[in-house]
């Protein structure tokens, strides 16, 4: 009988996706504001966990899947700290399936 695939970690999932690094920072967070953010919705909504919390908001834009949801939740239920745009032309994520 075929075996069940072992559960994948998020890092393993992200390693299945191609990224081209954008030298331009397309996400910029005013992390000072995050200290006062009660709900911190970006930590949960992002499917790539670009945002993590350890004493302060940390973010790593290299795994960004470009959904844009962080911007909405941050501005509507968060601290309005995230500035987000798409990466430069040709940069960022590239899906082979989609």
């Amino acid at each position, binding site marked *: 009988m075929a075996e069940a*695939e072992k559960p994948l970690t998020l890092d393993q999932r992200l390693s299945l996706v191609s990224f081209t690094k954008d030298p331009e920072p397309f996400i910029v967070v005013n992390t000072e504001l995050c200290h006062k953010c009660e709900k911190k*919705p970006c930590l*949960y*909504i992002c*499917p790539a966990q670009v945002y993590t919390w350890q004493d302060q908001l940390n973010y790593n834009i290299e795994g960004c899947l470009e*959904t844009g949801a962080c911007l909405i939740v941050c501005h509507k239920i968060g601290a309005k700290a995230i500035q987000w745009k798409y990466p*430069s032309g040709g940069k960022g994520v590239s899906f082979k*399936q989609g």
Partner: protein
Amino acid sequence: MGERGKEELDRNRINHSLDSPPETELSLEGFEVAVVGAGPAGSAAALTLAREGVQVLLLERGPFPGSKNVFGGRIYSYAVKRLMGERWKEAPVERFVRKEGITFTTSDSAFSIEYESRDPQFSFTAIRAKFDKWLAEQAEKAGTQLVSEVRVDDLTVENGQVKGIVAGGDKIPTDAVIACDGTTTGLARRAGLVTMLEPHEISMGIKDVIELSSDRIEERFGLNPGEGAAHVFVGDCTGGLRGGGFLYTNRESVALGLVAGADDVSLRKVLSPSLMEKLKTHPRVQRLIRGGRTIEYDAHMIPEAGPGMLSRPFTGGMLVAGDAAGHLLNSGYTFRGVDMAIGAGIAAAQTILEARKKRDYSARSLQVYERKLREEPSLKDMYTFRRVPAYLRNKRLYDTYPELICAAAEAVYRVDGTGKRKIFRELRAQTKGRVSTLRLIRDLLSGARTF
């Protein structure tokens, strides 16, 4: 055109034309219409315009059309047929969908309904990196100039009229712009047609593409060769969050994923990627994908506000189509996006063609677009079912009712020698403590009015 930006754009053009005959240097100027975004809406619009001899520039920010596009997995054929005629059969189809199903789940039980279609040609599963690429190629063959790896940053606006786009720091003047730039639609926002959506108006969609041999797919789902299945999962498999799981069979892979309300995910503090593993390990789902190997993880934000997402889908010199204008429909049991995007792209192109005859791209001239959207039979569904998104925000659909359905099925099917009640009495008994009869009837009636 600034020197740096020009270099950038020229380089892209050279990359792009590697597989086509060498061209003399082109300028990005001199195009009548700029279509922003080479997804289904953009390519359908560009194709329709190019066929009529319009000089169209189709801009894509990804390395190739389809490289940034993510969906569940199915396209309704009629739209591709409408756009391509008999040549729709050349589309990169994975499988034609023979079986439709829905499963209500608790943590350890499941209640499924399955429908087997007489004619599987009505819809097919697809891989966006292939389908969108193919569609953009059709637009190119008709004469569209496609340029990939260009991000459009802004519009040029004069006296409230869109006069062109800004990319790579350069202003590119055009008579009209069709914005097909997806859910985040920077261009519609820039034109003041939309403010930011609310979290309850968006959902997060994530999926794993799981490689599985075609034999296994056909055996497990009970399919003839080349035929496919589409399935929806509701309930515990998404942790009771607003949303649902989906599964589509490709030729040699299964697209398994889920959609969850952004407000629910954020406020209930559920890490969205953790939902993927929850769905995958549900026993009902697990048996379907066993032996498979995950080959890609995808994510996409879905606007759920309907066409009301924009105050209007046009402004002077610009039309908006596809996800950017909320042109999609989640009815809870079917998910439509690509077909509506194609329909909206065609409607946008037709609007531009009429405006072009009059040489008038003012808002007054373009307002006929909205009427076209409302009158086009396939797109009309968005308006007919406009109350569905609100109905689908009813929390009971995702916890109480799946549990109730499974408990009722258990009571009906279980024979353990303890004596059984008649079915109707059993159903009544199962609702006790879960939902009041009045509330249940209200939800049913309101469902009947909504769908």
